[in-house]
């Protein structure tokens, strides 16, 4: 094995400073990951097919942020954007030129598409042997289902997780957050770091093949040996019981119509009873031990259901928090960002949109204690950076850019 000196990047301001990523991913499973790479310092160049979009529109006061805008502001920040037609020879040549100067190609296209466009790993490594290609797909690069498209909901169902998620009313639920997309992105980012680590030692890149279904299966971690060696089938959700069997646990409706969720492991039973103003419950024979609470769960749940209706969720939360008992009011996304702990942790990032209106997105949860968070870069409109990237990075002349534009291989939008 040849020893290579790590690249010189003295004073790297972020972990990935000096690393360049070509991002040809769409939807969520890819862009969520390349956003993390961009935040951690990589120069991410998003490649979309023409046409370029007009510049980010002015936001008018009082005009709500649409879902489409939400996806741009949240998933396309920390990236530059170029428009390149990879189906044209000229466009592909530009892509190869970029690959020569790139560390990572990050995609979530269906298997087979990269080969068809001739931008698959086997091709790209002949152009740049140090290239790392990371593909996120529904089911992985090979096998009978390789070409089947997957959405978050399909992998949540096929992985087994939906079977034990629900209210207990028999209808399986998917987790509202697209965990199938997002965990695949997180594993892909880990793979990219691992491959960079490896490249600095070996001098060569490699290919990462991340499947959304694999990632969901991996999250079952402890349930897998429990299923296959202990004979437990996780099929019924237990909305009112903790993973380790804790009772009482889960959501209770409160007097104001909101829900409060509690998690009362044995060490919290006594402080819990006191905090909700029912100290006699603590020593009640029916509920004194975990075994008795499990045995008499229906009785205890009914009693607590009635009790929690006597006050608001916020008030119960306050009392239980003051006693150090695990609790949480079920918050909407906005309330979740506006609760005191999230505010103190500066979990939102504000961008100023054209026109001066503010748009808020989530901050990165990767925190280096005692150090400042890195600034986030607002998104570019689609194709806005085409000419600058090609001129600065590839030293293309104005004539060449004009020719490429005329051939429809690139699009930089309105000048």
């Amino acid at each position: 094995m040849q020893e290579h000196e790590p690249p010189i990047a003295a004073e790297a301001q972020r972990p990935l400073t000096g690393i360049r990523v070509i991002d040809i991913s769409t939807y969520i499973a890819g862009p969520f990951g390349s956003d993390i790479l961009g935040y951690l310092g990589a120069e991410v160049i998003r490649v979309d097919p023409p046409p370029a979009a007009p510049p980010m529109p002015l936001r008018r006061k009082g005009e709500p942020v649409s879902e489409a805008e939400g996806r741009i502001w949240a998933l396309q920040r920390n990236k530059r954007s170029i428009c390149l037609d990879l189906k044209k020879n000229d466009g592909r040549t530009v892509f190869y030129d970029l690959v020569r100067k790139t560390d990572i190609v990050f995609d979530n296209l269906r298997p087979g598409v990269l080969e068809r466009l001739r931008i698959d790993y086997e091709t790209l490594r002949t152009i740049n042997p140090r290239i790392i290609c990371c593909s996120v797909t529904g089911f992985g690069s090979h096998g009978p289902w390789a070409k089947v498209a997957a959405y978050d909901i399909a992998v949540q169902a096929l992985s087994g997780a939906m079977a034990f998620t629900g209210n207990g009313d028999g209808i399986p639920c998917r987790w509202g957050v697209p965990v199938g997309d997002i965990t695949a992105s997180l594993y892909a980012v880990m793979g990219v770091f691992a491959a960079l680590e490896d490249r600095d030692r070996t001098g060569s890149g490699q290919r990462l093949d991340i499947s959304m279904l694999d990632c969901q299966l991996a999250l079952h971690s402890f349930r897998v040996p429990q299923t296959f060696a202990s004979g437990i089938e996780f099929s019924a959700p237990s909305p009112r019981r903790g993973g380790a069997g804790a009772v009482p646990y889960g959501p209770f409706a409160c007097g104001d119509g909101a829900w409060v969720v509690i998690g009362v492991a044995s060490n919290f039973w006594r402080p819990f009873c006191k905090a909700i103003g029912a100290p006699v419950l603590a020593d009640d024979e029916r509920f004194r031990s975990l075994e008795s609470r499990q045995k008499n769960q229906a009785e205890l749940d009914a009693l607590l259901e009635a009790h929690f209706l006597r006050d608001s969720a916020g008030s119960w939360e306050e009392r239980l928090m003051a006693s150090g008992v695990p609790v949480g009011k079920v918050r909407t996304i906005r309330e979740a960002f506006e609760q005191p702990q999230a505010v103190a942790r500066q979990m939102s990032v504000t961008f100023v949109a054209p026109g001066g209106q503010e748009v808020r997105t989530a901050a990165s949860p990767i925190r280096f204690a005692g150090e400042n968070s890195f600034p986030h870069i607002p998104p570019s409109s689609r194709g806005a950076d085409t000419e600058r990237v090609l001129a600065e990075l590839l030293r293309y002349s104005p004539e060449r850019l004009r020719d490429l534009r005329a051939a429809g291989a690139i699009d930089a939008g309105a000048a």
Partner: protein
Amino acid sequence: MNAEAKAIAELAGVRGPLAGTLVLEICGEEPSGSLGTQILADLGATVFKIERLPEKDVPAFDPPAEGKPLRRDVAFFCGLNRNKRSICLDLKHDKGRAVFHSLARVADVVYDNYRPGVTARLGADYATLKALNPNIICCSVTGFGHTGPWSHLPGYDATILALGGGMSITSSGRPGSPPVRWGNPIGGIGGALYAVVGILAALRWRRVGRRGGAWLDISMLDTQLAMHAYRVPPALDGKVYLPEPRRGGIGSVPYGPFKCGDGRWFVVGVTSQFWEAACRVLGHPEWIDDPRFATQEQRQANEDLVNSLVAEAMLTRSSDEWQELFVGAQIPAGKVTVISEAFRHPHVALRDMLVGFKDGTFGDRVKVAGDPIKMSGYPFEGVESPPGFGEHTAVILKSVLNLPEEECARLRAERVAWWPLQGKVYERPSVV
């Protein structure tokens, strides 16, 4: 490579890009800790699980006879601790702490998931360890982080999911039905996944940026907030997201679970590009041009009707038949399976996603989930059984810290360190 570095590298469970990286795990058994260090171990890091001493000597593990069930707590442990090493040390004892500090001097990462203040009491906090090893990377995963007014509060998975906003968008959708938490503990899992990303970033930054160590402060609540991603800008601008059990994240209809003729549930994800194909598969090509459903806006406007018609159609075939038809038409859809079925998916074996252990105690009889990070440079070579309780105490003291045999024996006699005198032990005081 010096002898100590060699010993550390040799104690890794598998070959991988993190070869030679030493991780010390001081965690409870929750996935917020042990899943994170298991990912690092799968990537080739050497992971020492620092465990508390048993109160008294514990019996050797008696593996169940062929075909008999494995104890649930041992199975739990198997799922989160492969490819690791175990050392039993009393961190409350001065000498135990000294041994831990000697390990921290040669370690790269110390990973904990205790409430703020606990590591400081054990002398395992960043301030203490940085003085011993300026390059140390500490990573703490907690419910709420080490700063802010709630940093001292305990967080359980369900309460974190309530506070994080995820439960407000998850439900079966029946009127009045309670909010639902995800079946897998995504609070702890999210913490672990982001912790690993942070650790990998810190390792690289240290090496390439020529800087010292760092302290990562990962909050489970923060990670839940970050996962809302594209919903955040509209939500913080006033849009209230509610559970949409039969609508996709970007507004697709129909999108959700439907009951099939065999009584099983089947989910479909019909975005606009798949609507026509879905109508044909469902046996209702006439819906394609029906003005009530032709566009996504129309399907949204007539959502209840679309869903009731789809629900009726889905009852005409079994879930397996639908699976075949939808896959044939390349439409994203899937049967709601249980875990044992999920791992029978045609891809699972091909992709090494259900694997036995390559060694000893558990061997092929206990199966765990494979590593989803598939790297062309590292074809799968098998995973090692999770360590017995204190199984590697003696070898670590000897080969990494170079302690003579008599000193090791003395540490055991003084109850500073512990290892079983015979056999492997899987009786742990703190296992869930």
